């Protein structure tokens, strides 16, 4: 009996030690969490602040997130002001110097990504315009490779002894992206140039990668809810361009796009903007599998 207790205690201590040895990573979004897990594997313990079905622009800076951040070794952010309304406050409240901007544990996943829609001038009259460019860059799988590289670089700074491990995982990740990209490109090849409507301006990277054409948005300006006049405009555009699909995100209600659907017959499809948006989107690759299949289903 005594031996059993000693064994259990030793096992508990061993498990605790193994956990303690892991790099504790907090990411702002679930996509960054998924990629960090694919690069760090069993060397990392990752949690995401925003869920996959949540609007990443509007996350409430709950104090409970401060606990996670206070213990983090690394913080990964989408950057480009996407999280400007909540992450700076959480970071400064975390009291954790390891993850403050400029520290080794602060990873801006957007570094090196070729950005789209970089404004030449800024005017809030145009709606929620991001000053550095459109921040939804993870919706292009090729950008996933740059994100993974940034995360890998961050992990190597924190744990240089595992450099070879992380780089091997990065290589595997890139190989899988390349393979999947061919598969996705083949699936989407018949839909190149197909015109669609989107609810919010967050699909430009996906649009560019797979050759779609987003004719207009349900929101008259980014962040401004659809207005009756915008709906009239959209209905006319859907009819004149024979548009079959309106794409939306899990965190927007479909009431306005349903109005357009009713008037035109175009289908409203809710795509996943992040990992975890729907139950079957479990990792970064699933995100594109789901969206491409769903889109093709809608277009057919």
């Amino acid at each position, binding site marked *: 009996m005594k031996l059993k207790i000693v064994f259990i205690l030793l096992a508990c201590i061993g498990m605790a030690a193994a956990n303690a040895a892991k790099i504790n990573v907090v990411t702002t979004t679930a996509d960054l969490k998924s990629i960090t897990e694919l690069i760090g594997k069993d060397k990392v313990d990752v949690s995401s602040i925003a*869920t996959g*079905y*949540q*609007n990443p622009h*509007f*996350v*409430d*800076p*709950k*104090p*409970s997130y*401060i*606990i996670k951040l*206070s213990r983090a070794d690394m913080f990964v952010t989408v950057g*480009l002001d996407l999280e*400007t*309304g*909540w992450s*700076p*406050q959480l970071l*400064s*409240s975390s*009291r954790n*110097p390891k993850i*403050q*901007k*400029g*520290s080794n544990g602060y990873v801006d996943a957007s570094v*090196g*990504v*070729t*950005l789209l829609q*970089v404004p030449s001038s800024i005017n*809030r009259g145009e709606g*929620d315009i991001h*000053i*550095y*460019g459109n921040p939804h860059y993870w919706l292009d799988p*090729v950008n996933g*490779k*740059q994100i993974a590289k940034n995360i890998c670089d961050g992990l190597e700074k924190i744990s240089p002894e595992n450099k070879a491990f992380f780089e091997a995982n990065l290589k595997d990740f890139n190989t899988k992206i*390349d393979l999947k*990209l*061919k598969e996705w*490109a*083949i699936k*989407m*090849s*018949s839909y*190149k140039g197909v015109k669609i409507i989107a609810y919010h301006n967050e699909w430009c990277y996906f649009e560019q990668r*797979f*050759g779609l054409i987003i004719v207009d948005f349900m929101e008259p300006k980014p*962040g*401004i*809810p659809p207005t009756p006049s915008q709906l009239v405009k959209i209905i006319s555009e859907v009819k004149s361009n024979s548009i079959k699909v309106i794409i939306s995100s*899990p*965190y927007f*209600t479909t009431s306005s796009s349903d109005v357009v659907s009713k008037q035109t017959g175009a289908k409203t499809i809710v795509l996943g903007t992040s990992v975890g948006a729907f139950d079957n989107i479990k990792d970064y690759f699933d995100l594109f599998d789901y969206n491409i299949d769903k889109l093709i289903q809608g277009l057919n």
Partner: protein
Amino acid sequence: MNYFTQTALITVFFSSISVNLFSQTDSIVKPDSVLLKQIEKQLNSSQPPPPPVQMRTSPTTLPDISVVGDFQASYKNNVKRNFDAGINEAELALQSVVDPYARADFFFTVGKDPVTGKFSLDLEEGYLTTLSLPAHLQLKAGKFKSAMGRINPVHSHALPFISLPNAYENYFGEGINDEGVSLSWLVPNSLFYQELVVQFTDGPIDNPSFSRSVGNTYLELLHLKNFFELSANATLELGFSGITGHNFLDLRTNIAAMDLTYKWKPVQFNTYQSFTWQSEAYFSNANILNDKVVNSFGMYSFINFQFSRRMFFTGMYSYSNKPYSSGTVENSYSATIGWYATEFQKLEIEGKMTTSNMDKEQNQILLRWIFVIGTHGAHQY
């Protein structure tokens, strides 16, 4: 069939198979040829091409700058001037990280004197916050809003009502906003968020409960914040505050306060619906002349319900004595409708009624228009 004929037939057979196979492969490749070739070209290069250098706006060390405008109009009964309108306040915020060890926040206000109507500039807050103290400690030094309860630390433009609760106003005026130091400690509690704050400040100059002492007596505050995440969509915050300092008679006043906030906000549709129930209670113990002690009480409770993406309703009740008069009983009721155009502009209209056993009934209708330009930091949850 001779050897040559056999060989020729076999060759023709395999050629036809290989031609068929290749033609099938071609038929797969054909439809996506342009897109796939582009992708393959990118993938086949040994190193990904370096991304073109993109300007991410010109780098600057300027702080985040914002101005918050607060236009108000009001109708009040039982006063000489019933109608009033104008800029109530303009707030200029400058916020930035100082260096890897600290950040600084400055809030200047240009407020209107209700009597003269003249505007004057004031430093509402100006403080340095450390970012790298050990043991989860954070030090704040300068002029700041005290960490008492839920309303005091929040700038008025971020509150979901226009007129402050009577209980709060009777005990703290426009709020405790004082100079000194604040040390907060993130309690290492893995079950829920706990933060302990200790503050030592000079003492406010004009406040119903406290006054700046001429001697070595300062305003001392202790606040314990407990935050529970009940579910992904619901949270509960329970706070306890103790504050002690000199009153205008240069004698001691002690106030114990308790706050309770329940919030419900569905994570998936958090921009469309939310509900908050927030309450605070103040227990005052004020020493006055001739060794007398006045024990008094005040409380408020409000619900804030977001019923569409842009519309909010707030209903509030407040009960209050006064710091030096436990016999005074004030009851107030208010209802506020808010329309939030964007996160940078909101319009609110409020009706409020106050009854008192010492004064005439007061009714007021208030209108407030808040607008923000520039980059304004997030407010506390």
